[in-house]
């Protein structure tokens, strides 16, 4: 499973890049975070405060092992702006994937 944290407006590009690899299954959610990019300061009614978390989009894609590297590269290509806050990709192992509708498992389910 690839978990990517990207800038929200890059979602379209990433999705298209994955589609080109034939990857159609994707789950996204809205997250917030900080990394090297540490948020910024705002003023509300005269008081400064720290906005610590920047909105990001999290993408989860389960792919067969052979596609993992390609997918990872595709995401990086599509999501990179070169500016701080571009995000991270984490690659994890999935023991099994099951399609609820059919009960299929493994690569065929993806």
């Amino acid at each position, binding site marked *: 499973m690839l978990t990517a944290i990207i800038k929200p407006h890059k979602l379209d590009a990433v999705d298209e890049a994955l589609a080109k690899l034939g990857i159609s299954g994707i789950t996204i959610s809205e997250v*917030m975070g900080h990394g090297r990019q540490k948020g910024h300061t705002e003023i509300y*009614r*005269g*008081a400064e*405060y720290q906005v*610590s*978390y920047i909105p990001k989009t999290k993408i989860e894609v389960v792919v067969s092992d052979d596609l993992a590297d390609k997918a990872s590269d595709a995401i990086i290509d599509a999501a990179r702006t070169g500016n701080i806050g571009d995000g991270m990709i984490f690659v994890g192992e999935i023991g099994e994937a099951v399609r609820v509708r059919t009960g299929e498992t493994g690569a065929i389910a993806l």
Partner: protein
Amino acid sequence: MRKLRLITALLIASSVCLAAPAALAQDGDTAVTTQELQFVFNTLLFLLGGFLVMWMAAGFAMLESGMVRSKNVATICAKNIGLYSIAGLMFWLFGYNLMYGVDAGGWIGSFTWYEHPTHEAETGSYAGTSDWFFQMVFCATAASIVSGTLAERIKLWPFLAFCVVLTGIIYPIQGAWTWGGGWLKEAGFSDFAGSTIVHSVGGWAALVGALILGARIGKYDSKGGIHPMPGSSMPLATLGTFILWLGWFGFNGGSQLALGTINDASDVARIFANTNTAAAAGVVAAMVLTQILYKKVDLTMALNGALAGLVSITAEPLTPTMPMAALIGVIGGVLVVVTVPLLDKLKIDDVVGAIPVHLVCGIWGTLAVPLTNDSTNFGSQIIGILAIGVFVSAVSAVLWFILKGTVGLRVSEEDERGGLDIAELGLEAYPEFGPVTSPSTA
């Protein structure tokens, strides 16, 4: 047979009048008299002004809903509709006669309830009950001010209990002193539509309440840090401000108390224009000043700026010229931008900025009266401000302390963290829109 009823009425009327189409005064007994005409116009002004001010209750509800965090929104709605209802009942049960049943130069009216006059008793220049209605909605306004300051931590029922006394006793007693014709009136105090008598009264009660209640958990840290807790909905806060602005035409315009002559009608028009100008000037002042101070416009300050202008012009919306109205509003807008962070420095936690808007600008507006109204003087204005401030603060403090010592004023820490909506109402204002976890909403 609503239509027929009218037609019948007309037939009756016309059997008398149309037969004499020459008009009003031809036949003195049946025609409309000047008194009748004034009566209808003045009553109409009270009813128009009254429903516009009633609408301000919705304005406060929306402004406050937008300025609190989502976990406290339903509770602030409940407080607002509750307090308006309580004001409506208490001003009938005690308020009106306490306020307007006072002897000339006196201190307090009578503890009796208001009754509709009979038709025969309507010999004044307006319908008695139209005045009741108009004055009642003013009373409700004073209570609305308090709910915003104390939001997000005060318990529902103790707050409403305070409103019972505020609207039934505190507000009417001090109101009697000036508008009822009591001692402050004789002392020369002048407050056309209530910068002090309505707005500061709410402001004092709120300030004393905020001091006794303390700040919201997490608002101020031990190192002097201030942690803003941004409001949950800027469009609702904006809507609330626009509603209040609209209602203010009734608030100030209706306070002319008469409409049926050229002078009265043109005075009401003048009041409308000055009211709008002061509000507009307050907005522009707040926007420019926040841009200068903070390099960004603060929308919540701009909204407060509108209200600041409105409160400031309320003590005397008639006599200023347009430039003076603008100036009064500008100073109101500046006062708000300056006072909001000042209160934070003092660790006085005013969720919606009601103290800067209603108390500070209420004082400013009252002090500004002699600038344009020659029949007033600063001494009397200061006496009025102080007398009402001391009275309202003292009685409010006693009341807040009694409530604190008996039923308790404040929800538990856990309830405050989890939100008053779940704790006090068992429901959520927006059950389907999860609050994003962020430190400021901790």
